[in-house]
């Protein structure tokens, strides 16, 4: 697929931003920031918005995109912390808003989930599918709920590991070892969370709790506190583990 003149407007502050930026450029897209696009909005063929933790910013940026871009330009938004339906409801052209969700690192994701909002119309879904196909990802279309499938299930596993750690049922190392050696997980849940970003996991957990209002989705207090303390994992040098010294980084 040739993507030479395709400009994608990418905005947001989730850990996905940097990786998507890199991947889009690598596949020949021109990537614009919101500021870049304000002078020539007609060059933008698609917008991708990736805020998870800060929902105020998400709302503001989606409204700005909705104002800036012609009504037929699709806006693809992460539906990790809220439903795509809610995100679309903020805009004047909700039919062009489509949800998606995945977690970093993208190199490990063969497949990306797409969640059309109740309001989404076909062209926006097709645009989301072809965007991810052009990045060599397979796609699966699921019904719109917070966290989709993989991010939702993994965030609950990590949340449970955080509860177990908070209770001092075992050390972080033993929790991770147990899940890898006892049930073949590709990574231990705590080291996995540190690589994804605890902020992203917390955003999903909080979103599930907010939308379903069930004890089932209660966030582990330790997870929330680590995020408040800005210990979001590898990115910040500390999360469930420390990444200060070299040996610890190699964990």
């Amino acid at each position, binding site marked *: 697929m040739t993507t030479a003149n395709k400009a994608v407007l990418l905005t947001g502050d989730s850990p996905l931003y940097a990786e998507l930026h890199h991947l889009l450029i690598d596949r020949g897209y021109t990537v614009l920031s919101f500021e870049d696009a304000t002078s020539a909005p007609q060059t933008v063929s698609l917008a991708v918005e990736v805020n998870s933790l800060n929902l105020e910013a998400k709302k503001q940026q989606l409204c700005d995109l909705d104002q800036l871009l012609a009504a037929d330009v699709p806006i693809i938004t992460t539906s990790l912390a809220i439903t795509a339906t809610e995100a679309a409801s903020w805009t004047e052209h909700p039919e062009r808003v489509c949800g998606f969700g995945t977690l970093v690192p993208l190199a490990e994701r063969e497949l990306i989930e797409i969640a059309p909002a109740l309001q989404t119309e076909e062209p926006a879904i097709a645009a989301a599918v072809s965007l991810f196909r052009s990045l060599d990802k397979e796609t699966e279309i699921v019904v719109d709920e917070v966290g989709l499938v993989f991010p939702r299930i*993994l965030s609950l596993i990590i949340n449970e590991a955080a509860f*177990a750690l908070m209770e001092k049922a075992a050390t972080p190392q033993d929790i991770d070892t147990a899940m890898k050696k006892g049930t073949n997980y590709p990574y231990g849940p705590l080291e996995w969370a540190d690589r994804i970003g605890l902020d992203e996991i917390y955003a999903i957990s909080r979103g599930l709790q907010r939308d379903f209002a069930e004890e089932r989705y209660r966030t582990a207090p330790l997870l929330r506190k680590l995020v408040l303390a800005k210990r979001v994992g590898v990115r910040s040098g500390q999360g469930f583990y420390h990444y200060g010294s070299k040996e610890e980084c190699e964990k």
Partner: protein
Amino acid sequence: METKTVGVIGAGTMGAGIALVCGRKGHHVKLLDANQAVLDKAQSYLQSILSKDVEKGKINEQQKTDTLERMKLVSDMEQLADCDIVIEAVPERLDLKKTIFGELSRICKSDALLLTNTSSISITEIAGGLPHPERILGFHFFNPAPVMPLVEVIRGKKSSEDNVEQAYRFAEQLGKVPVLVTDTPGFIVNRIARPYYNEALRILGDNVAKVEQIDRIMKQAGGFKMGPFELQDMIGIDINFATTQSVYSDFFHEGRFKPSRIQQRMVQAGSLGRKTGEGFYDYSK
């Protein structure tokens, strides 16, 4: 490495595998079962696995003979009197386990380590009221025991540090990877893995995605080796449901562990997965 005399109680799926693990490492093993037919089956299992070890060149014929020589099949608890370590692997019933640990407390040396392979019963409850509860610990292998590297070493409320350390070292000597865990419901693995099944079931029940989709997503997006539904079919949906129920009830009905009605209906219908030819997938074709 110090050679020990290890008793294994229950020669079923787990016990026979655990005995093999111990025998291969040079320990003297006494494998006990209440059922003679099970003992006969265990004997031929050990012979056939060790013969395969010879074929693969892992050991020679003499080593096989020596290993089998060191492994005795017994049917009387009194024969465990000289064991340094006993690992219990009888069915998952508190009354059975309590009786066995009561007997062991009477029969074994006062410093023998008494270990249970329970997947879900509280170690503290098994040891409660017995003399020398400090030497009763959880020692949880994963199925198949000769293949899966993990052993959860579970510290009961009265287990002593010294014995915990001994059990940990013993697991290492068996070539396993031990982890230490306090006596909490589901220990580590069976607790933290609950959402993998339960949330997949919830997502299915809420019609967010279909069985095949969820399995595909967890493998291709998540990098898991098996999807949650394929895995339930392999484990047995009844076994998986029972584990969830037990963790849920031991957490005093904490909402995070609430079992799934979909899973309950499958158990009620006898659709238990591969072993019945039908579960979330159809295996009859």
